[in-house]
């Protein structure tokens, strides 16, 4: 089981290591697209794009569906949104903390410059 997880992990790591594939995910985040459209968008051959989509599909990041002669790609799974959401919640927590920290540091700076002036007198 652990090995399976590890293997899958490696697959997804590889999937995201490529700039074109990240671009494809970004594109699919905006709208579903056919492999043909993606190939045009990224100035690639159909075969080249198919390979990238296969890698993303294996990693579970993209699903494809063939209707007639067109294979449509869409972003993988709901899990993706879930993770994005909690990361965003976590970011908001830290963002709020740091905004308060800014004020504390700002106060310290102000105090220090006032104290500094006093000392020089």
């Amino acid at each position, binding site marked *: 089981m652990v090995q399976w*997880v590890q293997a*899958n*992990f490696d*697959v*997804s*790591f590889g*999937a*995201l290591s490529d700039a074109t594939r*990240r671009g494809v*995910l*970004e594109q699919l*985040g905006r709208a579903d697209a056919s492999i043909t459209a993606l190939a045009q968008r990224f100035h690639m051959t159909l075969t080249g794009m198919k390979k990238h989509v296969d890698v993303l599909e294996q*990693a*579970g*990041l993209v699903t494809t569906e063939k209707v007639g002669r067109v294979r449509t790609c869409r972003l*993988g*799974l*709901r*899990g*993706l949104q*879930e*993770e*994005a959401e*909690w*990361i965003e*919640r*976590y*970011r908001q*927590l*830290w*963002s*709020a*903390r*740091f*905004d*308060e*920290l*800014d*004020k*504390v*540091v*700002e*106060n*310290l*700076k102000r105090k*220090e410059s006032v104290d500094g002036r006093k000392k020089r007198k």
Partner: protein
Amino acid sequence: MDERRESEAAPTKNHTTVERRSERELVVTRTVNGPARLVFEAWTKADLFRRWWVPRSYGLTLLSCEMDVRVGGGYRLVFSHQDSTMEFFGTYLDVTPHSRLVWTNEEGDGGMTVTTVTFDDIAGRTLVAVHDLYPSKEALDAASGSTGAMPEALDQLDELLVSLGSTTTE
């Protein structure tokens, strides 16, 4: 305890990023407009720390905050939330003034999380990186409140988010 006067001089806020660096690691980074010396102070003095650690919008009240900031020293934060209290506690493993703080988080089940905070002073501003190393992937997922139902294949999503963030917001 109300020393805020937000309306005056609101300096521009810097961007906070979160990156899931591996199955067990989460890294938060943010630049603070002040020298590392002062930022470090705000992280290590209880009376300063308690002023910013708990965002007011979270409905939590910090009942007590004890920090014995030295290697082997402990800390304990007690919060109240509605009718219950929560405690966070652990031990400082490294205290390097103005540059590095490491502490354990021992309140969780199933092993402890280690938090490493680094402070990089860059021309009077400080890049703060908060690195959490969880005992297991499950512990990180539990902490995040995610359902755990998502496929393992999505664990590298953080990189995607970072790359999307940098292309769409900047």
